[in-house]
């Protein structure tokens, strides 16, 4: 019989319980889907690494003669070490608008269990002496290729045809980026090809490795072998030596996984806590209201346990109503999320099936939260003795509050205003709840909109204000800047040419070090503009270095600090130092800047440039590509517009997430305001009805409640400003990488939008409450004894 009561009670306040359930659905949806996907990703990653023997360390170098590699095998702690040739080449694709690149990675077809072994998904093994290759599966799919198709590349200045014998995936290129300035893998323009070492020799006419990978014996740390390796390889020109943790693909996958795992824990707890708060307040109200009923039940002889059981069915129903659909939807979403990850991460076994474990964990989690909240909400009334419960509670006392002492403020209020303000302090718990709810709603929408703004700003700043060239030509090897510039300037359609030097270096400050590129920019560059934190143009320094904020933070340096510079381009052993002369914001990439001539002098190798920036008339890129496609000197021709367009396309996918967050914050704001208004209404129906009898319109009566809410809302929104900063700060910390730095700036427009979203959810909730006020039955309410 009591079940009927439960359903009728739930129906009587369906708005609040429904809102609570929706929040719970969101919580469990996020929990199941994120946990499920994170688990699957983690598992796939670990299996893949283990099965394919993923290396523990990576060395990039100039040239290591083939024979030398065997000596390194003897270094203590090294389990397996292999030399490779790794070369980026252009694909002969005359029809393509953009340049297409392949990274050729040499493999030994006879090796049984090679490091970074390729997982062959289709095709046949390679032979040492055939011009056949394996392709990475993303590139293969993106270009609609077939096995035995030929793919033409430009290697050593000549066009060469390679036959596709197989398709595979490598643990080294799960997240395949061509340069560190790229943000997303783009299989249309960049792929990996695995080529027998003998064929690489033929293609490039070289007999030396430029890349070494190794694995460590169990228990051996990377740092233990690093110095020995560096020492042994120094004569062959070590560019960089880094552990697996710094390997780009691994690093990005790991960051993504960690984010996902954190989100899977924090977000559901946050939402569940909000749902629990609403439940707590509603149940507290319900049991207070039904004091008399409880007394009667007790008088009948119902035990305490039975009555608690009865009241706990409310949270039970809500928990199940929230977690079961949440879990099911989450399982569906995890399939979809896995598909998104499959677009970016090239790994076998990437899928997410229905996970009974997380489904049930989700149910348990929501049960724990809601039953606990429910119990807390109703325990007080249940402790009463039956006779006591049958008596009405002591009437609420009224009294002056501290705000009244501020007579200037107090005298401004209408009588309704005074009522509202006194009510706030009368029910502190609920006021705090509303305050937190509105603050959260505001902060959450402010921070999401800000992120949207910032991503736009980041891209816009980098490509419209900083890198203002149209085309960038990257060279295979440094060239004398004058000859090359002259030739390029003479090309029809080229309006302006500027040389640039990108020099890979290791910057070191005490024990902190970082591998980056120093960009040498001409003093009066019109094509690469360096901006300070106020957006003013500043020239590249002639003495010393300009660092990006993130780089400076990583190295813990300030203006005036000295940095040790190591570069493979200087053979000299004596340490070189440069002073930090400025720190600038840079959101895409992470760099150090210097004036070009000064950099050339510092290196002492003459006026060399590694790339050229061009300002061109429209339609110049095509003939330019055609002319230089065969050039053995040219590594890449990039049009900025295409790069920007692609980035924006990728960023658009963030857009939907932002709307989702905004919607969630609205739901939360609505749920909190609505539930607190309905509770206030039922609690004070008598007061409100008396006001209507006095002749106040429903609107005037409602104004007491709305005044209360707006009074809190203004304060809460003000408090939401630092909170949104905090949220953005932690988000920025989580998202920022060497590729991408997110500034912690909340734009004014985001505040405005956050205000609108919050105000809208408050408004909608009040509208719903207003309907209840008009339905207040004066006759019945006033008849009842207080």
């Amino acid at each position, binding site marked *: 019989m009591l079940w009927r009561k439960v359903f009728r009670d739930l129906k009587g306040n369906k708005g609040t319980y429904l809102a609570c359930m929706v929040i719970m659905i969101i919580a469990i949806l996020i929990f199941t889907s994120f946990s499920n996907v994170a688990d699957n990703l983690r598992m796939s990653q670990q299996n893949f690494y283990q099965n394919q023997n993923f290396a523990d360390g990576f060395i990039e170098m100039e040239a290591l003669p083939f024979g030398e590699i065997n000596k390194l095998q003897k270094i203590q702690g090294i389990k397996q070490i292999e030399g490779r040739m790794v070369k980026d080449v252009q694909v002969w694709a005359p029809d393509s608008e953009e340049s297409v690149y392949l990274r050729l990675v040499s493999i030994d077809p006879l090796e049984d269990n090679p490091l970074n072994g390729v997982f062959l998904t289709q095709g046949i093994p390679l032979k040492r002496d055939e011009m056949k290759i394996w392709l990475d599966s993303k590139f293969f799919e993106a270009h609609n290729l077939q096995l035995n198709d030929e793919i033409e590349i430009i290697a050593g200045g000549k066009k060469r045809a390679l036959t596709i014998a197989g398709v595979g995936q490598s643990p080294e290129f799960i997240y395949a980026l061509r340069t560190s300035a790229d943000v997303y893998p783009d299989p249309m323009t960049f792929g990996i090809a695995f080529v027998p070492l003998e064929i690489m020799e033929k293609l490039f006419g070289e007999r030396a490795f430029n890349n070494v990978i190794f694995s460590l014996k169990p228990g051996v740390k990377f740092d233990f072998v690093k110095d020995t390796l560096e020492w042994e390889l120094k004569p062959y020109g070590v560019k960089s030596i880094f552990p697996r943790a710094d390997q780009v693909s691994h690093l990005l996958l790991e960051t993504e996984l960690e984010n996902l795992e954190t989100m899977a824990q924090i977000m559901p707890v946050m939402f569940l806590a909000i749902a629990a708060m609403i439940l707590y307040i509603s149940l507290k109200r319900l049991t207070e209201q039904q004091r008399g009923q409880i007394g009667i039940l007790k008088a009948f002889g119902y035990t305490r346990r039975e009555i608690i059981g009865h009241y706990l069915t409310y949270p039970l129903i809500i928990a199940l109503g929230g977690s079961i659909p949440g879990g099911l939807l989450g399982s569906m979403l995890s399939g979809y999320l896995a598909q998104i990850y499959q677009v970016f991460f090239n790994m076998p076994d990437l899928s997410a099936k229905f996970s009974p474990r997380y489904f049930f964990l989700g149910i348990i989690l929501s049960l724990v939260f809601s039953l606990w909240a429910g119990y807390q909400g109703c325990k007080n009334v249940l402790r009463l003795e039956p006779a006591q419960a049958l008596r009405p509670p002591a009437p609420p006392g009224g009294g002056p509050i501290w705000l009244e002492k501020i007579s200037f403020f107090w005298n401004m209020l209408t009588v309704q205003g005074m009522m509202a303000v006194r009510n706030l302090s009368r029910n502190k718990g609920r006021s705090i709840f509303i305050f937190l709810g509105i603050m959260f709603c505001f902060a959450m929408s402010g921070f999401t909109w800000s992120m949207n703004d910032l991503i736009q700003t980041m891209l816009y700043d980098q490509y419209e204000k900083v890198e203002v060239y149209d085309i960038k030509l990257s060279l295979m090897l440094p060239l004398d800047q004058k000859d090359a510039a002259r030739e390029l300037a003479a090309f029809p359609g080229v309006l302006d040419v500027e040389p640039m030097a990108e020099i890979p270096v290791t910057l070191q400050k005490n024990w902190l070090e970082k591998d980056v590129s120093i960009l040498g920019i001409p003093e009066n560059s019109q094509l690469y503009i360096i901006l300070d934190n106020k957006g003013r143009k500043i020239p590249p320094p002639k003495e010393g270095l300009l660092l990006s904020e993130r780089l400076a933070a990583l190295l813990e340096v300030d203006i005036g600090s000295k940095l040790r510079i190591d570069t493979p381009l200087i053979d000299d052993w004596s340490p070189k130092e440069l002073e930090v002369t400025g720190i600038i914001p840079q959101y895409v990439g992470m760099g150090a800047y210097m004036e070009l001539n000064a950099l050339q002098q510092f290196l002492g190798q003459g006026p060399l440039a590694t790339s050229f920036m061009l300002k061109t008339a429209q339609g110049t890129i095509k003939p330019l590509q055609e002319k230089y496609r065969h050039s053995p000197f040219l590594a890449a021709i990039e049009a900025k517009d295409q790069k920007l367009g692609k980035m924006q396309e990728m960023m658009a996918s963030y857009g939907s997430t932002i709307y989702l967050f905004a919607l969630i914050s609205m739901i939360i704001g609505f749920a909190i305001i609505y539930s607190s208004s309905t509770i206030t209404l039922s609690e004070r129906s008598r007061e409100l009805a008396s006001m209507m009898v006095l*002749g106040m*319109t429903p609107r*005037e009566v409602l104004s007491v409640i709305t005044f209360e809410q707006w009074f809190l809302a203004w304060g809460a929104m003000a408090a939401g400003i630092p909170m949104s900063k905090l949220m953005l700060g932690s988000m920025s910390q989580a998202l920022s990488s060497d590729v991408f730095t997110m500034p912690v700036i909340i734009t004014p427009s985001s505040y405005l939008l956050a205000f609108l979203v919050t105000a809208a959810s408050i408004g909608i909730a009040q509208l719903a409450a207003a309907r209840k006020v008009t339905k207040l039955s004066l*006759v019945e309410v006033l008849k009842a004894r*207080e």
Partner: protein
Amino acid sequence: MRAEELCKTYKMGEVTVEALKNASFELYEGELVVVLGPSGSGKSTLLNIIGGMDTATSGRLYYRDTPLHTADSKQLTFYRRNDVGFVFQFYNLMPNLTAYENIALAVQIAQNPLSIEELLEKVGLADRAQHFPSQLSGGEQQRIAIARALVKNPQILLCDEPTGALDFATSIQVLKLLKEFCTAYNKTVIIITHNTAIAQIAHRVFHLKDGRIVKIENNPHPIPPEKVTW
């Protein structure tokens, strides 16, 4: 005010209850009417309809030629606002407003309110103006409630068992106040009660039974409240 054949039926689940049957009467300025009857006789229903808190199921009701039986909720709100004052058995003061502020709440919406101070003086509570309801006795609360009803300067004052929760001495005080308002300001006061003794102070007495006005009795010589005993 004129009522013609007012009927009110309530649907309580399957059962229909006729709370008021064919009530016809007139009310005049400056008169004090007492409505007598046992519980369930329709007293409160009648009062609610007169006060614009409820509408009749059928029949006609005119206030100074304005039809109230066809008025919508907005018109009724303004009728309550400008022309009616209510006093309840259980005071219904706002617990978190002081005595003064409770009265000020009504002033805020009134068209030509009386002076709050004057009224407080009249109900003898000028020194308790800054007290909250929980700091006042029942009689004091009721007097504040009356002051709140009067301050709007309404034409009709409706009192639902105004002395029902009070002791004898306090009741007499309250009745004195009501009578004074009636005669001094030339207003209509209607008091609902099942205490027959109170009827002695009225100009006219309505007797209700089973939803019908069974008798309207004229009292040419009402006695002053202080002479009433029970």
